[in-house]
């Protein structure tokens, strides 16, 4: 299962930066996501008035949608089947219609049980440096060795 421009394990070093991936989650995309998710609407993810009742500054992204956006950085970099583990903490509500920057830093590389593993810290931030969602990821990459 290979994709073009996929990095090899040997090319990755500690401290390498992945991304950033710039995203904006528009109102319509959040509504579309909530429809797929099956969450009854309207809700705090889609309606300003309901979000306000929950003391939120506006409608926010569901955590599972933030996670999907962050996984995208890793699949774009490592390939569709590279991501093995994504473990996130939702630190602050993520707003709609605002620039979001998703980036990761390689914190470890190792070969284990025949797999070539790359571990990263990953973070979603806002325009003013807000740290919305953070966590760690583990990817498995191909090797140049035959």
């Amino acid at each position, binding site marked *: 299962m290979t994709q073009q421009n996929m990095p090899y394990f040997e090319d990755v070093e500690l401290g390498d930066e992945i991304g950033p991936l710039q995203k904006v989650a528009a109102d319509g995309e959040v509504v*579309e996501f909530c429809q797929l998710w099956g969450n009854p609407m309207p809700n705090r993810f889609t309606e300003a008035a309901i979000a306000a009742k929950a003391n939120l500054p506006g409608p926010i992204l569901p955590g599972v949608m933030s996670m*999907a956006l962050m996984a995208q950085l890793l*699949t774009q970099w490592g390939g569709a089947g590279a991501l093995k*583990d994504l*473990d996130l903490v939702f630190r602050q509500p993520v707003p709609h219609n605002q620039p979001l920057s998703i980036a990761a830093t390689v914190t470890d590389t190792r070969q284990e049980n025949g797999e070539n593993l790359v571990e990263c810290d990953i973070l979603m931030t806002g325009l003013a440096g807000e740290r919305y969602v953070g966590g760690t990821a583990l990817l498995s990459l191909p090797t140049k060795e035959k």
Partner: protein
Amino acid sequence: MVMELEYDRSLYGKEHEAGPFEVTKEIIQAFSQSIGETGAVFNDESAAQTAGYRSVVAPPTLCTLYVRRVELPDINLKFGRTRFHAGQRVQAKASICAGDFLTASSHLKEVYPKTGRSGTMVFIVWETTFRNQDGEVVADVQESYAARE
């Protein structure tokens, strides 16, 4: 001092199941569209098959859509006035492709307190295992909820 938590401990060891859910090409494409995922294997069947997959591939967190289809009981935690989604973990074990049928099985993994500068919070962690139509485990998902005073 260890904080004594009051909740329904009889829930440990009980599995709560849901499904099967058919993962259609349309669901994968709608999920990809809603997050702006343009990768060929997630959107185009021939590109996915050229890359060695059976059909269009589900982005690795797509199974999180189905976690809340499992009806989970209230653990009757006697702590906190508000609860929020604190974290989520997905461990992908195998590819999920269009045409797969997933079943979900959830159990209470742990409940624990944590004290920081803003006070004490209690975390409730549910773990859901997804299997495909062949009984193969394709993903484990952990959802954490925090209760705050």
